[in-house]
């Protein structure tokens, strides 16, 4: 395939040399898989995998008004966050439509001054950058987009923390989930956070582009005895689906209100204001809005995005993601259905390319790691 005009990550050459099947993902040339999605998925669940996620947008906010600006744009409270803490949040427009789901990091310069980092979806980077600059007003902030001069590696799996800690002496096991630390990895400056998008333990490493291949290579080598794999976007998708994590463009979009998503932990309405707040308050009080559910489909056939959901022959909703998943060995889906169809255990039907397939509403996540 042609990859002209696509952005490339610092690991592009590595992917090409190691059999990465490159696809256009949000304008980036990214590996969808190296060998097999199932193998890469299973390695992440049982050992450890490396994912190149350098395509994710990485912003920095400096200046005294950074907190106030971010606070005015996020569904989750950012004000009062502790240094080195990270929060998952949504960004909404005035109508409550979801513009993106993001991570906000509160960090600190050695001078003691706070600053913020934000990681956004690759597909929404330009949109969110424009949205931020549009709402900056006369606030005193310095906004920097570091997507192209840094890279990002996710190390995920039950042995991820052990691997990174042993090899880099980064005190990862002492760090709580959703915290980060700026320190060194293999002698170069890096921000390491205990975050991820697989439902496994692990961390994500951000460093300057020129250091990313070295960090990747050394982790890749050091992890061989643990059964480490490089994993592509294909496995990343099946892993996040099992963990019932929403994917922008599927479970989240400008046509979806946060009140429908089941992500109540990421919505703080009390004693604060942000763009979209009113629309969320209204949506929460609306008993007729469709809600996100998890479905287990009978048989091995997967429902895909756009498959229609029925109950007693009547259309009640639509599938947003679905796949046969390697860990569970089941066909699972997420979708949005009428609020009277969300009861766990409820029997629904999905139209899979003309065939009505039985499906049962199940609790999310589909998979949780043992802790």
């Amino acid at each position, binding site marked *: 395939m042609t990859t002209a005009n696509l952005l490339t990550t610092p690991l592009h050459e590595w992917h090409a040399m190691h059999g990465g099947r490159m696809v256009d993902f949000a304008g980036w040339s990214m590996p969808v898989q190296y060998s*097999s*999605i199932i193998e890469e998925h299973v390695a992440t669940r049982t050992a450890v995998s490396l994912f190149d996620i350098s395509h994710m947008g990485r912003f920095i906010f400096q200046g005294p008004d950074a907190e106030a600006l971010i606070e005015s744009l996020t569904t989750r409270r950012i004000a009062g966050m502790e240094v080195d803490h990270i929060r998952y949040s949504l960004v909404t427009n005035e109508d409550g439509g979801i513009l993106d789901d993001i991570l906000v990091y509160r960090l600190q310069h050695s001078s003691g001054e706070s600053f913020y980092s934000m990681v956004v979806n690759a597909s929404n980077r330009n949109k969110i950058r424009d949205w931020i600059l549009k709402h900056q007003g006369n606030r005193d902030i310095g906004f920097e987009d570091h997507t192209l001069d840094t890279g990002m590696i996710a190390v995920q799996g039950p042995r991820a923390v052990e691997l990174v800690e042993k090899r880099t002496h980064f005190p990862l096991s002492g760090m709580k989930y959703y915290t980060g630390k700026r320190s060194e990895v293999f002698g170069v400056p890096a921000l390491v956070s205990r975050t991820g998008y697989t439902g496994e333990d692990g961390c994500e490493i951000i460093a300057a582009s020129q250091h990313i291949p070295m960090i990747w290579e050394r982790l890749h080598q050091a992890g061989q005895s643990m059964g480490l794999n490089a994993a592509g976007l294909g496995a990343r998708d099946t892993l996040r689906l099992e963990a019932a994590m929403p994917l922008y463009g599927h479970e989240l979009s400008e046509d979806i209100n946060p009140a429908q998503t089941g992500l109540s932990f990421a919505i703080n309405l009390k004693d604060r204001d942000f763009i979209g707040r009113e629309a969320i308050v209204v949506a929460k009080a609306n008993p007729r809005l469709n809600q996100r559910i998890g479905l287990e489909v009978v048989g091995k056939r*997967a429902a895909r995005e756009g498959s229609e959901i029925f109950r007693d022959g009547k259309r009640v909703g639509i599938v947003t993601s679905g*796949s*046969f998943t390697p860990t569970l060995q089941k066909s699972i889906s997420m979708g949005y259905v009428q609020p009277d169809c969300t009861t766990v255990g409820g029997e629904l039907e999905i139209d899979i390319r003309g065939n009505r397939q039985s499906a049962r509403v199940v609790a999310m996540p589909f998979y949780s790691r043992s802790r």
Partner: protein
Amino acid sequence: MKPEDLLFLESHEWVHIDGQGGSKVGTIGISAFAVEQLTDLVFMELPKVGAKVAAGDELGEVESVKAVSPIYSPVSGEVIEVNKDLPNQLEILNSDPYGRGWIAKVKITDESSLGKLMDYITYQKQCAS
């Protein structure tokens, strides 16, 4: 079967033509290249015995973790046999795509479409481009 003895569709199906009681029968499968590209196969739907198909019609479908792909019939005729064990042992498609990985046999009723099929060398050139 050797791939050199087969004819191919652009969409990666193969067919082996042989005579059987006066009429020609096409044994149909999907190529090693297709299996390699699909990877992670999880589901296959076979056609029904007795079904009438025209060349280019959907014969069945094969699904990988990532996506579903139709299987097109390279020939026109009637399905007379299907490889019933294959959906439960999809790994056969990896180990023996041109032999035990056959999908269906079709009694050919109209040979006019055969001329549009590619030989193996032409097909390989398509896969390499």
